Every structure is written in structure tokens, then in C-alpha cells.
């Protein structure tokens, strides 16, 4: 999408790879930019960002905070590679504005382990993906895993059973071009059964 001029991360962003100096207000106005300041909470840490409103949550995570675990596939909400958890629910981070998530709890694949059984260990869904060999190239995997974590929470909250058909239907927002679906389904089932 837009380049580095669109936004800058500063302050507590530990992974920031490109820090562009903030344009001052007068310059920003003259250039038609509308930089706004916002604090995003990602994996339990606050990040103070100065970004244009058009920066998506996905681009904020990857380009301005430096958390590149979340992947950009289609950038149009069709592939699910950008799936993250917001307030515990899975969403497509490419189709939402970063500014719209002030005050929300964003969790990316990098933050899952600290929410699993024992911080630092892989999340049970991550462990199941490794055990079941649920990937080939791995590009869709962070999105698949975040989506599966969201699905398990939905199944618990709504009380539906995770049959193979249900898993396939409820994971249909995540495309795997390597076709690792049989093992992805097995991994989700295993993680779900382990509860």
C-alpha cells in the first residue's frame, strides 16, 4: 500500500525497522497528509504510533511495529494470511484500519505462546500444527494458527462440536496454496480435543 511516508512508529516499538521522521503539522497539512497519533496494544504491550488513517492494522503491525509474523497474502480479505485476534476474536487485519483499534487487545502469532499453557512454550495449537505437519511452505500458517485459536474459542463459547466438516467450514477463511488441508484439519481437531 502506501510507503514509509504514510506513517512512522516511535517510542516503545522495539522491532521498528524503519523510523521515518514525523512531518510537522504544517508540512503534513500542505502535503495532504493526516497523521494521527494512536496507541495500539499488541501482545500485551502498548505501541505509540503516528500514522495516517489509511494504514491498515496489518501494515501497522508489519511495517511500523515490526511484527512480521502476520502475513500479507492477498491484502483483500480473501486468503486469511493476515488473521489476528482482536479482543479474543479472529479478524482479517488487512481490512481494518489501525486507528479503529485503539483500546483493543490485539494478539498476533508472536503473542500466542504467552497465552498458552505456560508462557514461552508453544501454544497448544502451534504444537499441534508441528505434530501434525500442518504446513508446507508455511506462509499461510500464522493466519491458520490464529484462526484456529479463534475457532476453538468460538466452539467453547457456543458449544458446537468440532467435527471434520465443521472444522473445514469454519476454517474456510484461510487458504493454503500448498494444499495442507488434511493435516491442518487434523491439527485443529487435535488441539480441540486436547481442549
Amino acid at each position, binding site marked *: 500500500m502506501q510507503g514509509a511516508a504514510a506513517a512512522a512508529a516511535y517510542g516503545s516499538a522495539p522491532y521498528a525497522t524503519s523510523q521515518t521522521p514525523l512531518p510537522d503539522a504544517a508540512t503534513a497539512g500542505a502535503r*495532504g497528509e493526516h497523521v494521527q497519533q494512536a496507541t495500539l496494544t499488541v501482545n500485551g504491550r502498548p505501541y505509540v504510533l503516528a500514522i495516517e488513517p*489509511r494504514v491498515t492494522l496489518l501494515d501497522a503491525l508489519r511495517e511500523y511495529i515490526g511484527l512480521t509474523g502476520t502475513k500479507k497474502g492477498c491484502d483483500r480479505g480473501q486468503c*486469511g494470511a493476515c488473521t489476528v485476534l482482536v479482543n479474543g*476474536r479472529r479478524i*482479517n487485519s488487512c481490512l481494518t484500519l489501525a486507528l479503529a483499534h485503539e483500546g483493543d487487545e490485539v494478539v498476533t502469532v508472536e503473542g500466542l505462546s504467552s497465552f498458552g499453557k505456560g508462557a514461552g512454550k508453544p501454544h497448544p495449537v502451534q504444537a499441534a500444527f508441528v505434530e501434525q505437519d500442518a504446513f508446507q511452505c508455511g506462509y499461510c500458517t500464522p493466519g491458520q494458527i490464529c484462526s484456529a485459536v479463534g*475457532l476453538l474459542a468460538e466452539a467453547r463459547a457456543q458449544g458446537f462440536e468440532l467435527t471434520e466438516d465443521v472444522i473445514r467450514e*469454519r476454517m474456510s477463511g484461510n487458504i493454503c496454496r500448498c494444499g495442507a488441508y488434511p493435516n491442518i484439519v487434523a491439527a485443529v481437531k487435535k488441539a480441540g480435543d486436547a481442549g
Partner: protein
Amino acid sequence: MNSFTYVRASDLDAAVREGARADTYYLGAGTNLLDLMKGGVERPARLVDVTRLPLAAIEELPGGGLRIGAMVSNADAASHPLVTSRYPLLAQALLAGASPQLRNMATTGGNLLQRTRCSYFYDTGFSACNKRKPGSGCAALEGHNRMHAILGASDKCIAVHPSDMAVALAALDAAVRVRGPKGERAIPMREFHRLPGDAPQRDTTLQHGELITAVDLPSPQFTKAHYLKVRDRASYAFALVSVAAALDMDGERIKTARVALGGVAHKPWRATRSEELLIGKTLEPEALKPAAIAAVEGAKGYRDNKFKIELAQRAIVRALRTAGGAA
């Protein structure tokens, strides 16, 4: 994506005041609007974020109806006990739409206002699209039109409305509550979306600045219902044809029926003539056939979508039989 100003509305009055300004759009979850902005199809100067307005409740109405706030997510509406128990048709339609991630994001109001997925509308590389650029023509008329309309189209536009939720709402006689600079009003679902005619750039009868606040459902009348969606893959695809069927039975015979079609027109297509013909009929396929034929009366197919005329009839019979427990 073009640069724009982002404003978060603090309350309803402020939202409507901001939304009435020129080149301003309301922003719900943005799952369709941001997609369109990335492609340059939409280029608003200002967005008013309405997602934090107090419009996210599902509450019972006096008289037995149900009000679904405009900011209730599609996922929350689909799993709410009052929806699943009283309006299973709506829950089924919601779950047939999009992906779980998108349903977690997409709002009730935003779902109604999503725009067609006609590829000639979506791709600014094509110069001819009356919906995107009035007067420029319709590339779909002579182009790839497998997904396009068979009913109610015009020579200006053959796009279809993509929502599943809206088809169920049309069948259930819902009303859309809106608030604008001139006050509040309720628009019956059947009058909310419009046919393309000479102005396909207008999808709905909303006026600029009007904000959807809720969808009201009348008290549940139908004990049996089924939403059938026929599509090119098993999940996460737009409908070729969909049918929202609801029945109230008197023994073996239909007392009252509701039939609405998706994927066939510029708006959810209520088949009222079919509904009349269904009264007193059994669920035998032959008994249902005249109603299915009536639903596609006047249908017109184009190069790639003529199959929809037959498909719609078969889907209607199957949806009615499934709703009634006969299939």
C-alpha cells in the same frame, strides 16, 4: 488507497452531523469499503467511524419482534439465542455468508450496504461501468456475466446484490431503521435496495447522511425455514443462486410461505407471486413447481448465466422441501 480524514463519532447526534458533510462516508467494520478504497473504486475524503456507537444490542420489541442494532456483528447475530431460536432462517443466511473472520468484523448495517462484487465494477481497469461511473456503459452485458442478474436488470446494469443476510431479512419482512439530518424513519426491506433502472450508481433508497441504526424483525411467524445457497465451492463464495424459504404449515399443506432469492437481482428478490401460489399446496415436488416457475417469470439470461433460470427453480423446490422437512 487515497488519503482521508478519520473521525470517530462519540454519539449518534455527532455521527449524523459529521456524516451529512460532503464526500463523507460512515465507516462500520470497513470489510467492503476498505477493499473498494484499495482498488480506487471509492475515494471518500472523510470517514466517520460509527463502530463505537451504542448500537450493538439485540433486544426484544413490544409485540414480539426483535431489534438488531446496526453494529451487531454478523457472527454475534448468527449465534444469539433469540435469533437462532426464533429466526433460524436469518441465522442460517448469516452463516452462509463470507468467512468466520469477516463475520466477526462485519456489522448488520454494513452488510446491507456492501456493494456488488461484479468484477467490472471492482476493477477500475475497465472503463465501462455505470455503477462506478454513470454514463460509461456496462461491460458485463457483453462480458463475463456468469455471476450476474437474471431478474429486474436494465440495459445499464446487470449486477447482483451479494448479501445473504439481506435475502433472509427480505423474506422475514424486516424493516431498516435509519437516522439522518431530517430525523428517523423505518424503511421496509423490500424498499431498501433498489433495481438498477437508469441509476445503477444508487444501490439503496438511503439519502446522503442517513445512518442505519437497527434492523427490526416482526414477531416470528414461521416455524419451518431453510436458507439454501448454491455456489461454486462449498464455502466462502458468493451465491450463484440462494433461496430463503419460510413456511407455516397446516398439517400436510402450506398455510403461508415466504420465498426470497439471492444472487439473481440488484436487490433481494421477493417472489410474492410464488408465495400466493404455494398456499394450500403440499410439499410434493410437482405441487411446488408452479410456484418455482412463477418466481422466474420474465427472467432474462445473458451469455454465461442462462443456467441460473433453471437453477433458481430447482433451488426453490429444494429449499421449500427442506424447510418443510420433506427433503
